[in-house]
């Protein structure tokens, strides 16, 4: 079968994409500073870097979302100014976003044809498209039923639909932005297999990621970015994780962190027969039973969307459980007899329950407010920050300054709008605020989502220090690596149920992966 090529007879050896001195500035921030590198045709090219290193900006420039302040992009040796994303698509560039751009109620075929219907009457183009889709599916081993509804597909299958959509439109260069964030380990493996087929058939793949294991599992060559510049480029076959990590953050990261011996104290939280269903009666949490002791980190593993978020919300008082019992320090949490959870989180907070939510921009921060005002969110009525209903601006500012210093929030300006900070620094504000409250029980969702590697290390050390200080911690994370580093005990959830529980020393990616996929393993007590 002939390969689909858009090379237009470019001589071999000419890079398919070349960035030449790309500069892009947002306000005072240089997102890209003189970025130059080449991507070989038919390769899988990784771009790694901390958050805010400029990877996404560079790809947005390639995809026509942003315009470079200076510099140029060459495609197959020809200058190719990208005025908008339509032009990028026309030149054979396709991008898979973290959030899929699919219409849930449409079939796979309808989604793929959306925007390229090609005729007023759909029937004929549908038939042609379906035929072409099946061809593409077998050519690239991307089997998806063209007539399945997208809402009935798994996340991995939806991602395959996105890829098919781009191939159908003639994409030769695929950009994938953190594609594995929503996948199970098994689905990740399947995706990688597909991408390798693409490469072998002459397509070029650009993978943006912050996960080093993905770089080494998949890519041929990797460009490392830091603070808007290219700091290194290596062939993955002749390099090592440690070397790339060092390039990325400028120092080595540790694969395990120091921690005190596991000596759990009294039971702080006890969850018994906890159920939660939504207004439609769909079960979100199904008979959960577990307990958390002082001085231990209990990690909840699972693919996102399997009830972990809801569990954290119930424990933090943001939602009422449908049935079951929550005991905290031998007292029933005061949720009984309420119609709704309106105002309940304040009550839980005064009992010593702190909560760093999964989605910090949606729940943990008020983006338009300053760092200082966010540093007291949830504690605005504490005697330290207010008296008789009046806020104490000096005390609030002093508190924020302390927090910014202690948690190394950059830029160190408490008056700055929190929305202007990078993800890692926003997370430091949230965690700093919750830790400063000296909790007995700490609930943390996705502590390092969207956080750069340098900050991940800092955050992990902080959490372990909390544990060593005797605080009970419930950690929800979709990053198994994070769970491996932090957890004392691991609970795996799938479909709102606990599908397994294991101790840290029994950590086993394959076993956890199976549990995450709903295959129950023997639950050890």
């Amino acid at each position, binding site marked *: 079968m002939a390969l689909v090529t858009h090379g237009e007879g470019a001589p071999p050896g000419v890079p398919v994409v070349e960035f030449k001195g790309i500069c892009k500035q947002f*306000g005072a921030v240089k997102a890209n500073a003189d970025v130059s590198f080449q991507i070989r045709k038919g390769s899988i090219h990784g771009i790694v870097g901390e958050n805010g290193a400029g990877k996404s900006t560079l790809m947005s420039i390639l995809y026509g979302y942003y315009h470079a302040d200076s510099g140029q992009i060459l495609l197959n040796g020809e200058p190719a100014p990208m005025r908008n994303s339509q032009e990028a698509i026309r030149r054979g560039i396709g991008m898979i976003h973290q959030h899929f751009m699919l219409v849930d109620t449409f079939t796979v075929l309808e989604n793929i044809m959306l925007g390229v219907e090609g005729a007023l009457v759909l029937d004929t183009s549908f038939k042609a498209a379906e035929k072409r889709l099946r061809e593409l599916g077998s050519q690239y081993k991307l089997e998806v039923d063209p007539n399945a509804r997208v809402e009935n597909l798994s996340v991995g299958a939806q991602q395959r639909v996105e890829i098919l959509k781009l191939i159908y439109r003639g994409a030769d260069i695929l950009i994938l932005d953190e594609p594995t964030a929503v996948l199970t380990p098994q689905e990740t493996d399947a995706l990688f297999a597909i991408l390798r087929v693409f490469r072998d058939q002459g397509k070029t793949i650009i993978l943006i990621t912050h996960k080093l294991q993905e770089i080494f599992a998949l890519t041929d060559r990797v460009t490392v970015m830091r603070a808007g510049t290219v700091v290194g480029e290596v062939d993955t076959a002749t390099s090592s994780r440690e070397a790339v990590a060092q390039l990325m953050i400028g120092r080595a990261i540790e694969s395990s962190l120091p921690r005190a011996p596991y000596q759990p104290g009294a039971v702080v939280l006890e969850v018994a027969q906890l159920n939660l269903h939504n207004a439609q009666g769909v079960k979100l949490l199904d008979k959960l039973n577990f307990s958390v002791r002082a001085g231990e980190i209990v990690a909840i593993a699972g693919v996102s969307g399997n009830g972990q978020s809801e569990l954290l919300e119930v424990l*933090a*008082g*943001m939602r009422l459980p449908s049935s079951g019992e929550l005991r905290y320090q031998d007292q029933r949490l005061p949720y009984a007899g309420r119609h*709704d*959870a*309106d*105002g*309940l*989180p*304040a*009550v*839980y*907070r005064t009992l010593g329950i702190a*909560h760093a*939510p999964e989605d910090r921009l*949606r*729940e*943990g*921060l*008020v*983006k*338009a*407010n300053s760092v200082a*005002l966010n540093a007291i*969110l*949830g504690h*605005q*009525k504490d005697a330290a920050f*207010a008296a008789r*209903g*009046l*806020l104490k*601006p000096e005390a609030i500012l002093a508190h924020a300054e302390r927090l910014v210093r202690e948690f190394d929030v950059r830029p160190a300006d408490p008056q700055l709008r929190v929305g202007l900070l990078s993800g890692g620094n926003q997370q430091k504000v949230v965690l700093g605020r919750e830790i400063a409250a000296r909790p007995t029980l700490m609930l943390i969702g996705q502590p390092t989502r969207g956080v750069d590697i340098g900050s991940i290390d800092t955050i992990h050390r902080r959490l372990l220090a909390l544990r060593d200080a005797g605080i009970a911690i419930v950690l929800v994370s979709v990053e198994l690596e994070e769970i491996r580093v932090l957890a004392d005990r691991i609970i795996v959830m799938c479909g709102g149920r606990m599908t397994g529980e294991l101790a840290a020393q029994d950590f086993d990616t394959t076993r956890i992966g199976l549990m995450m996929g709903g295959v129950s393993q023997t639950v050890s007590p």
Partner: protein
Amino acid sequence: MNPQDLPRWATSLLLPILNLLSALLVAGLVIYALGESPLESLGILVNSAFLNPEGLGYTLFYATTFIFTALGVAFALHTGLFNIGGEGQMYVGGLGMALVVLNMDAHWGPWVVIPLAIACSALFGAAWAFLPGYLQARRGSHIVVTTIMFNFIAASLMNYVIVSLLIPVGQQTTASRQFAASGWLPRLNEWLPVLGQTPVNISFLLALAALAVYALVMRRTTWGYGIRAVGLNPHAAHYAGVSIKGVVIGVMAVSGALAGMAAVNSEMGSAHQLGLNFTAGAGYIGIAVALMGRNHPIGMLLSAVLFGGLIQGGFDLSLEKSNIPPETFVFIQGLVILFCGAMENLYAPAVAGLLRKMKKPSTA
């Protein structure tokens, strides 16, 4: 630079001025089409509304009402609630005021009647806004729909109360009886004779105080902190333990109280009776004033004075220029609302582009 990243001085000063000039330009074209000189007309308008002390007194008199109704909008807007019901809340507030004055003005002095009447106008306005607030918080009824409905209900209710219960036997005008002097608000010309025979009264000072209290509550109290959190990010407010339902109900009641107090200015300060339809659309103008003033206390003060000036100046303009009908001020007011409210970001992209160009040479 993107339009949303414009510096504060540009969004809060430059853009409103450009919008206002645009509105005046269009108004000038229409006046020209009517056969009058736009510049001369503008001169008359400005002179009558702001330069002549007596005219300024009238301008401030009208502005007083608008400050209260605008505060009623702005307060609710901080929680993300669009309170369209200022008109009805003001009207019902007038009922609370009149009940106090009509029952007490014969027996009690102004020191008792005036504070009690003001308090009662706030109480009635608050009660009228509490209901939509409660329905929004507890039943999910949309505040825009309910407050509009409550405006109609208020109009019908007040029509019944005034026409069937309050008009004294034998009186022709559709209003309550005249208040006795203890129900009259002291006018500012008692201390500032330069204001001449204008009805601007102590409720203007009350309006300024209300603006200051509003700023204090929003910036310096835990309640204001919660209110703004609910408006900026309700999910984060819930996370923080702020009772969203409590905030919605409380904020609507305070908004209603502020709109209710708007009744006092015209009825106790000038008409000295409770008249049918005395609100005359002030509740709706309050929406425009709050939007144009961008919820900022000083911004709202300035835009309330602007709208007051348009009424006063437009009225004098139609007296002096035979070709200009008295409705002209309604028309100019409409243009101001159009340019400053509905199309407030009309010039934002152009200003952003200009700033970008000016900045580039200096940073390169």
